[in-house]
């Protein structure tokens, strides 16, 4: 189902062939709905009722001259590079309508001392924002990338649908911090696609801090022996927030490693979703996949849905997953109170400790100053509301 108004959006004669094809694919696929297994827990129905209009992507301008490896993305760039993102309905919509984006290219062996910051703002209400980012790290290159989706002003009801494609050549190393910190009325449906060549390393911190309905879909493919992916995540679903983390990790070849560690906290009327799938392909002997999802429910109206899946097609592999849902441990609270710590402070301590298990990358990337405070403020407001 696609709202009639949307089908009128772009003037076809002004679209390139690639965009037109993407647009037609989008029209054929339509807006995802809850009857689709992939969208079982997240509804986008409200978007169909919103009078949305396409707008510039809200990418904040970079300080000129500081970072040479980053420049605006052009349509020709996408045509020249291999497509990495799966062609989902929303990816096709982005491919048809994206207006602004960034291209990050690191030469082989290039090490960036400073983190790259892609800061996205939201300019207006009812805007439809489709930013597109393309990242390529050459052989042995190293970088830290921060993708920050935020809204500084009033709570605007926009929809952001970003697509980020990341390609790591042999031995490359990327630390990727991704913040979904949208306004309390906004919808966010992000897609990140990553492909790892041999011996490359990818570490992600997936932070779900704000927004009304948020979903981040990660498709990661370990395509070369020795590739290692570390996926950490934390989502805070308080108030009426809906926060969906959707992970697809594919071990295409053997001797690849993935470590997934997500923490989720739901309070108020919030709802958190963790839907992760690890696929180990035929012949990928020596693949090693571990997945760990722990979730905290802090209020009677909150909800957590977890769906940790394994699909194994080889026998010389190691794969495991664990998922838990529960509340703060009564005996831990009791212990802290016997030490003279008041109940609210004790709760705060336990919530912080729980969240900290997933936040190691903030320190490791040297971004404490920029990020730690922001996360702490959100945790504090969540603990207080509770």
């Amino acid at each position: 189902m696609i709202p009639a108004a949307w089908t009128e959006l772009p003037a076809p004669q002004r679209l390139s062939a690639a965009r037109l094809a993407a647009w037609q694919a989008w029209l054929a696929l339509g807006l995802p709905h809850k009857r689709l297994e992939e969208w079982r827990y997240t509804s986008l129905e409200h978007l169909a009722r919103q009078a949305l209009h396409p707008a510039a992507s809200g990418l904040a301008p970079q300080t000129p001259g500081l970072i040479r490896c980053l420049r605006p993305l052009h349509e020709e760039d996408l045509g020249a590079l291999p497509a990495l993102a799966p062609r989902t309905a929303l990816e096709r919509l982005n491919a048809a309508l994206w207006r602004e984006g960034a291209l990050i290219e690191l030469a082989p062996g290039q090490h960036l001392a400073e983190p790259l910051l892609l800061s996205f703002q939201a300019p207006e209400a009812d805007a439809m924002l489709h930013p597109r980012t393309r990242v390529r790290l050459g052989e042995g290159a190293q970088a830290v990338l921060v993708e920050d989706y935020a809204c500084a002003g009033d709570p605007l009801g926009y929809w952001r649908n970003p697509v980020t494609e990341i390609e790591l050549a042999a031995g490359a190393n990327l630390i990727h911090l991704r913040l979904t910190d949208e306004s309390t009325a906004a919808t966010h449906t992000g897609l990140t696609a990553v492909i790892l060549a041999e011996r490359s390393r990818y570490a992600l911190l997936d932070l779900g801090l704000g927004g009304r309905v948020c979903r981040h879909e990660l498709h990661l493919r370990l395509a070369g022996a020795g590739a290692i992916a570390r996926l950490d995540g934390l989502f805070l679903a308080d108030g009426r927030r809906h926060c969906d983390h959707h992970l697809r990790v594919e071990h295409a070849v053997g001797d690849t490693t993935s470590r997934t560690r997500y923490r989720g906290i739901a309070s108020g009327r919030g709802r958190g979703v963790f839907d992760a799938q690890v696929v180990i392909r035929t012949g990928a002997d020596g693949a090693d996949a571990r997945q760990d999802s722990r979730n905290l429910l802090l209020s009677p109206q909150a909800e957590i849905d977890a769906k940790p899946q394994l699909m194994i097609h080889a026998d010389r592999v190691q794969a495991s997953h664990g998922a838990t849902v529960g509340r703060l441990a009564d005996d831990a609270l009791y212990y802290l109170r016997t030490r003279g710590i008041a109940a609210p402070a004790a709760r705060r301590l336990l919530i912080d400790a729980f969240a900290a298990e997933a936040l190691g990358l903030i320190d490791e990337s040297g971004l404490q100053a920029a990020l730690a405070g922001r996360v702490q403020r959100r945790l504090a407001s969540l603990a207080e509301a509770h």
Partner: protein
Amino acid sequence: MGSDDLTLQRQLSGEYRWGFTTDIEQELAPAGLNEDVIRLISAKKDEPDWLLEWRLAAYRHWLTLSEPKWASVHYPPIDYQAIHYYAAPKMAKRPQSLEEVDPKLLQTYEKLGIPLQERAALAGVAVDAVFDSVSVATTFKARLEKLGIIFCSFSEAVREHPELVRQYLGSVVPYTDNYFAALNSAVFSDGSFVYVPKGVRCPMELSTYFRINARMTGQFERTLIIADEGSYVSYLEGCTAPSRDENQLHAAVVELVALDDAHIKYSTVQNWYPGDEEGRGGIYNFVTKRGECRGARARISWTQVETGSAITWKYPSCILRGDDSVGEFYSVAVTRGRQQADTGTKMIHIGRRTRSTIVSKGISAGHGHNAYRGLVRILEGAEGARNHTQCDSLLMGPHCAAHTFPYIEVKNPTAQVEHEATTSRVSEAQLFYLRARGLTEEDAVNMIVNGFCKAVFKELPMEFAVEAQKLLAVSLEGAVG
């Protein structure tokens, strides 16, 4: 119950297997499904009007549904209009002697130690094995009747105890539940009915072996078990011996109702024909099994050992409505050759302090394809609910597959839910260790596999557990090496 008794019971079932075919054969309904066929089925069974109405309502609902495609299994489309919904197995199609039976099947019987005459019956050979042991069945029946336990075929229950059937039929699995449940509700052939009165502990394991005509229930079996307050019953379904069947599609429905303090234990060993090495001709087993703990402190345990069928699609579930009720699911599913299994459970926690345990062991060998699919749902009111799920896969060989699809939905903060899953293989180190201790490779594999499945086997009634172990050994012969 000794193994001699078991043999006897199998012979019993053998006797009655083809016992009443004569008049049915004359009245084979035309292939296809329409309201007239349903009216015919109902009329043949001399059913009351309300049951016919129920069947028709189910049929009309079925027409509005489309076949589910979400399971992780693949099969060619089923032509529902090509099936005879009221028909006896055709004698002419069956092998006329043991010589015509697939020798592989016979070898398996040999290994399981099944008596010669019985082998023929199981393989579907058109010989009427006659054993004179009706008296045993009647003795059992008399003993049960004395305690007020009703154990009979579904058709008999409709005739003799219509009020019970009407009260409980479809109350756990309504015909609107799913595609195959709707189909079953419209055309179900026969099945078992059990009612255990208040406070009665059923003194023996109830098994279809005891029930006359049990093996003629056809492809759309319907089972209804009701345990009244404070009662206990253990029900065994199936047989370790591989049985052949003319019907490729099996869509059974099993409903369990446990009232206050009642306990139902339902054990299944399923070893239907899995098809030849390419998976042709095997049984499709699309079953809906569900129990409801309707009363406080009620308890329902499902234990299953699934080794047969080309495709298994079943999720024995528990609705934990009563406060403090308990649901359990223990499963071993083996797939080898081209077998596919998509199986698991659902635990729906509604009542306070409800508890559930899920232990699932999947074994894949050859080109086998094994999927665990489970749902644990904690509703708002399920204060203090608890679930633990352990879900392990054992892989043998580079071409098999093991999938895990757990769904965890928690709406109450006082609940505690844990899920863990591992995937492993029979490692060379383990094999080497056992072989160094003088075990043959086959025995070593058996020992490792039995250890892997132990948590489930210990839930099976004794005789069944012994047979299940043997069955597993036979099923996995040559899988490692």
